[in-house]
């Protein structure tokens, strides 16, 4: 028996073909690189493996030495798939999974791993709609997988199914994964189809994202130090959406008053009320944004011996967005230890601790939101008093009667989050005998969120309370344990034919506990003292908990014949506390197969196609993420709201549904990986068809039940699509290499069944109906402007033939969708000697985006707010003028009953864009002599810019088209450009 590892990293290599020369005997290594092959001293073993050079070994007397295979530098280096339950080779894998190497995203100025994944995986749509560092990021794999529940993928870190998403209760946005340091990630696997996700049972149908952290490697201890610094700056607002300058606003307002027929005297007094003639103004967007900073420092130590390996790291990351007071600081540490207790028993420990500190200003149209203020406030509302102090007056046209002074708010209010996460895992592996292994795994995902809110007593949300403060303590204690047996059976008498079988048991419990305390009445005399203890009147004291459990058995098998034909199957039975009592347990299964055509003899007749693999799978997986912990149980809630005449009360207010359970997806997937020209070019097309049944909908029930709605597994939805990944090395010479990676995904979503009575408008601007995309917009259609008089017009019919000036008569029409029809990434790296230039693009086509606040910045009916540049430039002024912006009339156009700016298709824009997400230029010092003199093993310097260039396709578009997944521009903290300079040093 022996073990095979990679020569460069010391990691075990599964699936290596081991042959005894001169015989027919042979075997493949198992998931840990071990193999057993009866042989005698002096015979020769031959080791071969895709991507590695063939190696031979004469069997010595005694124990076999560790076999270290050297890499054969080829493109297809992603050879291992780890899904949290087992490890296998890409060739033997029957599922659909994409691997992103951690090294690809190291040192990028992205505060969350999701942000870095954008554009790197075909079919994985990542919507970075907020520039708040540490913002929650919506991710959709192969289209929208759920409408009522959470449609994000399941996240697994080092085997642990974690609580993900936004766990905060007060912060504007937060991301449970913001504590993960990109430099600690070894690889990210995205599991897509049934063969890959069914093992995750009732939680896998939206895809599973497996994050594996770095582990110690055999050999000389390596110390690595990375440092970078830089700045963040505003991404330019599209010209159409720039707020007006003071003189433009003054001109437009005056014109609007004239158009409304006001007398000269009234116009003058209105102007004066707004300070238009005062000569004093300011540019709000410039005031609420600034140049921010970006820094990160990482140090890691990596080393070990045959028996003990250690990886440890410490990281610091800080980012200021350009918006005032929007920032994040992360400190993270990782310690991973692998130790062989004996030949048969090994243990591994993971310890990942991080703290993320954020301040998160409001978004959307809150009066206290800085970005909303920058758009809504007139340039003549003055940030500063004459004496240079901040203006906090709330009356008068040059002060702040509605939106607050954002500078005052950002200086005085607090909206902070401190998120501390500890992720601890322990694995015991015991090789009972050569074919049978036992693995025991236990992990804790411990999350503490301490949030502080403070609204000052002078101006803003706190002023009516004399100051408002709150402390929000939230703790998640989430544990998981898993015990698993793996057995390998080498089919007797058939060479290279084996069957792997796995059986396991898993249990998980997550306990959330929270306490809320709020108070009012702060001393205005001490504006810098903001802790809750200073509040004079306590108003809220609440504390409770919320738990869920999962209990599962699972098994899988795989039959592999010569790495040529592989057939696999999996089964999982999941029970959860969340499910209704009628349906506590669900069964999930998959079958998959792959045919490595390149192993066939006929394949070797040609030399154009260098590798070919066909894989297909079918099976089921479920989704229960976001299902309320107690939603299935009819219950009577005890609450102070139900206290009557001094007696505490309980009201039967949760209808419950004993049949409430997971949503179930039937997934079919087929794909082929083709490599050409000695693997210089790889093309991988893939087709999928995911049919989701038991889609949870909120259904109206007879109110004689005492309730209006109940959630029920009743709808059905289909996602089908095509993914294509092309990887290539178009140029490869001694000094110059160009490698490229292109991926694209097309998805079609449609409702295939909706509950009776739910067809119709949903979420105000969409239409729910069988056959339609879930995010199909539904709105009145704008017909432009009457060139004769500047009135706004709308269509009264779906065929767009008749128009009206009466908004009430305009017809609602289903038109366009919020989710993209096509998206992907295009990444290139050029290497010339030590130089390396990388350009990464992300693109998104076929969707429309909606501006729910557009009307405020477009019409004279909202003349007290600033306006978009597009309105100023294109407004109707003269008879005969053909334009799409109506006449500007303060109070609205009379012919339109003042509704000329009302919501219509006018505020929908093409969401198409291409973005240069990342551009970096580095130089790797390859002069060994120089490095030696410096005492270094590696030295690399780089400059990097992110979000440097964006191409959009709608000249009317007033904002960045990368918005929320539902297509809304929610006035989030704007994304930023970063410019950084960094250095990586290896000792």
């Amino acid at each position: 028996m022996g073990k095979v590892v990679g020569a460069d990293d010391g990691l075990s290599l599964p699936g290596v073909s081991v042959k005894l020369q001169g015989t027919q005997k042979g075997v493949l290594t198992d998931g840990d690189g071990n193999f057993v092959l009866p042989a005698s001293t002096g015979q020769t073993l031959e080791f071969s493996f895709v991507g590695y050079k063939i190696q031979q070994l004469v069997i010595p007397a005694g124990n076999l030495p560790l076999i270290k295979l050297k890499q054969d530098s080829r493109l297809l280096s992603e050879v291992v798939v780890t899904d949290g339950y087992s490890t296998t080779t890409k060739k033997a894998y029957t599922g659909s999974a994409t691997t992103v190497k951690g090294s690809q995203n190291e040192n990028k100025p992205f505060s969350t791993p999701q942000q870095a994944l954008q554009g790197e995986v075909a079919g994985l749509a990542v919507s970075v709609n907020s520039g708040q560092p540490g913002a929650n990021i919506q991710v959709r794999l192969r289209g929208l997988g759920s409408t009522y529940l959470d449609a994000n993928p399941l996240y697994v870190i080092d085997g642990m199914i974690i609580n993900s998403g936004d766990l905060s209760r007060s912060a504007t946005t937060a991301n449970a994964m913001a504590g993960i340091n990109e430099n600690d990630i070894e690889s990210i696997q995205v599991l897509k189809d049934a063969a890959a996700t069914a093992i995750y049972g009732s939680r896998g149908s939206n895809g599973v994202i497996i994050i594996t952290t770095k582990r110690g490697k055999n050999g000389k201890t390596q110390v690595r130090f990375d440092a970078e610094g830089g700045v963040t700056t505003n991404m330019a607002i599209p010209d159409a959406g720039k707020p007006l300058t003071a003189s433009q606003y003054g001109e437009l307002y005056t014109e609007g008053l004239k158009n409304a027929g006001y007398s000269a005297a009234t116009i003058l007094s209105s102007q004066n009320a707004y300070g238009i003639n005062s000569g004093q103004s300011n540019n709000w967007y410039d005031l609420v944004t600034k140049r921010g900073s970006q820094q990160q420092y990482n140090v890691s130590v990596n080393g070990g011996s045959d028996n003990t390996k250690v990886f440890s790291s410490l990281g610091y990351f800080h980012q200021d967005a350009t918006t005032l007071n929007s920032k994040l600081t992360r400190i993270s540490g990782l310690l991973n230890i692998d130790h062989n207790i004996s030949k048969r028993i090994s243990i591994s420990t993971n310890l990942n601790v991080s703290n993320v500190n954020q301040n998160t200003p409001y978004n959307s149209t809150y009066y206290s939101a800085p970005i909303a203020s920058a758009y809504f406030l007139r340039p003549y509302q003055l940030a500063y008093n004459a004496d240079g102090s901040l203006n906090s007056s709330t009356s008068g046209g040059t002060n702040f009667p509605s939106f607050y002074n954002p500078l005052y708010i950002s200086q005085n209010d607090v909206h902070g989050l401190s998120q501390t996460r500890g992720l601890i895992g322990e694995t015991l592996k015991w090789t009972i005998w050569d074919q049978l292994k036992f693995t025991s795994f236990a992990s804790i995902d411990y999350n503490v969120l301490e949030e502080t809110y403070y609204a000052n007593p002078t101006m803003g949300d706190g002023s009516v309370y004399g100051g408002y403060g709150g402390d929000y303590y939230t703790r998640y204690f989430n544990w998981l344990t898993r015990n698993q047996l793996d057995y390998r059976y080498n089919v007797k008498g058939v060479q290279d034919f084996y069957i792997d079988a796995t059986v396991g048991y898993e249990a998980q419990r997550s306990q959330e506990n929270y306490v809320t305390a709020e108070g009012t009445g702060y001393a205005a005399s001490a504006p810098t003292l903001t802790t809750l203890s200073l509040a004079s009147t306590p108003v809220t004291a609440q504390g409770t908990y919320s738990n869920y459990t999962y209990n599962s058995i699972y098994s899988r098998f795989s039959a592999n014949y010569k790495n040529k034909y592989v057939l696999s199957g999996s089964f999982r039975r999941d029970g959860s506390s969340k499910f209704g009592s009628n349906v506590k347990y669900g069964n999930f299964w998959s079958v998959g197969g792959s045919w490595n055509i390149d192993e066939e003899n006929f394949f070797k007749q040609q030399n154009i196609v260098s590798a070919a693999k066909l894989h297909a799978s079918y099976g089921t997986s479920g989704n229960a993420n976001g299902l309320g912990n107690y939603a299935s149980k009819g219950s009577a809630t005890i609450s102070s709201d139900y206290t009557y005449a001094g007696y505490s009360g309980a009201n039967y207010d949760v209808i419950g549904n004993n049949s409430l359970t997971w949503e179930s997806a039937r997934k079919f997937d087929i794909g082929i990986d083709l490599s050409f020209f000695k693997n210089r070019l790889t093309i991988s097309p893939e087709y999928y068809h995911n049919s989701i049944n038991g889609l949870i909908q909120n259904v109206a029930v007879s109110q004689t039940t005492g309730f209006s709605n109940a959630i029920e597994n009743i709808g059905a939805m289909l996602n089908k699509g095509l993914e294509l990944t092309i990887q290539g090395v178009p140029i490869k010479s001694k000094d110059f290499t160009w490698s490229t990676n292109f991926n694209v995904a097309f998805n079609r979503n449609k409702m295939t069944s909706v509950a009776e009575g739910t067809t119709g408008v949903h979420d105000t601007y969409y239409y729910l109906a069988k056959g339609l995309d879930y995010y199909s917009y539904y709105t009145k259609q704008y017909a432009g402007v009457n060139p004769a008089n500047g009135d706004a017009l709308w269509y009264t019919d779906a065929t767009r033939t008749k128009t009206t000036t009466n908004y009430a008569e305009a017809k609602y029409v289903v038109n366009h969708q919020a989710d993209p029809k096509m998206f992907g990434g295009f990444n290139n790296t050029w290497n010339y000697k030590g130089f390396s230039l990388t350009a990464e693009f992300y693109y998104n086509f076929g969707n429309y985006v909606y501006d729910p606040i557009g009307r405020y910045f477009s019409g004279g009916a909202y003349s007290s707010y600033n306006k978009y540049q597009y309105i100023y430039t294109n407004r109707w002024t003269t008879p005969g003028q053909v334009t799409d912006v109506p006449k500007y009339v303060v109070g609205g156009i009379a012919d339109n009953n003042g509704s000329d700016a009302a919501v219509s298709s006018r505020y929908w824009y093409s969401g198409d864009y291409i973005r240069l997400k990342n551009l970096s230029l580095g130089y790797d010092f390859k002069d060994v002599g120089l490095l030696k003199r410096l005492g270094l093993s590696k030295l690399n310097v780089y400059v990097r810019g992110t979000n440097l260039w964006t191409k959009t396709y709608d000249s009317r578009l007033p904002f960045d088209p990368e918005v929320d997944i539902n297509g809304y521009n929610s006035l989030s903290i704007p994304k930023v450009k970063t410019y950084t300079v960094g250095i990586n040093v290896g000792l």
Partner: protein
Amino acid sequence: MKVRNYIYILLAGIVTLASCKKSFLEEENPTAVAVESSITTETGMLTAISGMYTSMKSYTLFGRNLPVLGDLLADNSYVSITNSGRYLTENNYTYIATASEIDEIWSQAYNTILQANRILYASVPASDNVNQLRGEAYATRALVYLQLVNLYGQPYTVNPSAAGVPIVTQPTYTTGAFTKPARSSVSAVYDRIITDLDSAYTLMPATTPAIHDANSNFLSKYAAKAIEARAYLYKGDYANARDAALLVANNGGFSLAASSSAFSAYWASATNRTDKLETIFELNMSSTVNNGYNGLDAIYNQDGYGDVLCTDDLYNSYTATDFRKSLILDGTRTPYQAYIVNKYQNVLQSDRDEVKVVRYAEVLLTLAESYAQLGDSGEALTYLNRVAQLRDPSLAAYTATGTTLVADILNERRKELAFEGYRFFDLTRTAAVINRPQEGAKSAASIATVTTANTRRILPIPQVEINANASITQNPGY
């Protein structure tokens, strides 16, 4: 293979496949109890009773909508031209099945019925305390059905076999969330109401037991009987109405305010009563749990929305010496003069006005009307004059007989029970044309006459109920 290996395998196998107990999948909600097992003790039942009353006192039901509409749909009140947008379609009889109040009343009524059904379905060993609480639940359910059947169904006196409302007597956890009950006939609903009130009266001890305070915030034995008198009166069953009302009058121990000052003090008070003066049952509005800006007091009082005003006609119907005239202020609803309802006076206080649901004066007037309808003018005049002359000591006693006497009694009911939500039912059960005083520029759009043929005398079944419940039928005209 060594024996030891087998032991290892056995050990690994046991650890791997050992599953937790089934109870591992049971997680209990920390702020709620599973409804099936939520009432197992007397105190558990009391907690549910509190929940039932808080459901009932919502502004969408007894807390505002019901008492407002009972006068607004008739001739006692109107919506000012200066308004917050509330009750405009009711003021003008243009409501449709999607109107918000139509659905609010329906859904909140059935929510209250659900809370009562939960209590009645629980099995807790009988005791005085349990009997009292179960009686309160029966009386609540009956009271809510009486309101429902009179708003959404034909008056019993007009057509008892017409469609009433669905009768639900079981909690939803036993029927399932997706049950779709049909409407029962008006007479079937009345049968249920009478049965429930008989149960309530029989169950509840004459003296409220120790489970909760004995005050006007809780339904009592004689409150149930008083509601039964009302049900029989609405049904046109005057003999039974008389008998029920007599039981309350003779045995209930209630009294009317004996003086002008006692009368004023009674209406000024925001707290519950233990002296059995005037109130038989009223819903508690405390300083911590009340309807806030949506309260009944706020819709009338000019310190609240103040949208709904007293008609000039009603104001003028009171004599100058009538105590009750003092409950209406001659004031201004900008920019017009207006008569402002001042029955609920504590809108600016933290402890807000209780909402009166059953008062003793109603019982006495029911008694008078029953006697009059049964031909006993003498007894009728006794009870009518007892109320009328206490309210206006200068009033010459009523002396009429026959239909004039009945008309006098209905007129006295209008004056006594104004702004407590009775007038509309008095007009519909007597199949009267509703002549609504027109207030000109002071009023939002309002129709003057509601004939007996007007289908809006009956509210529409809410559209959301029609959509969700295939078994239900809409009322004619909607």
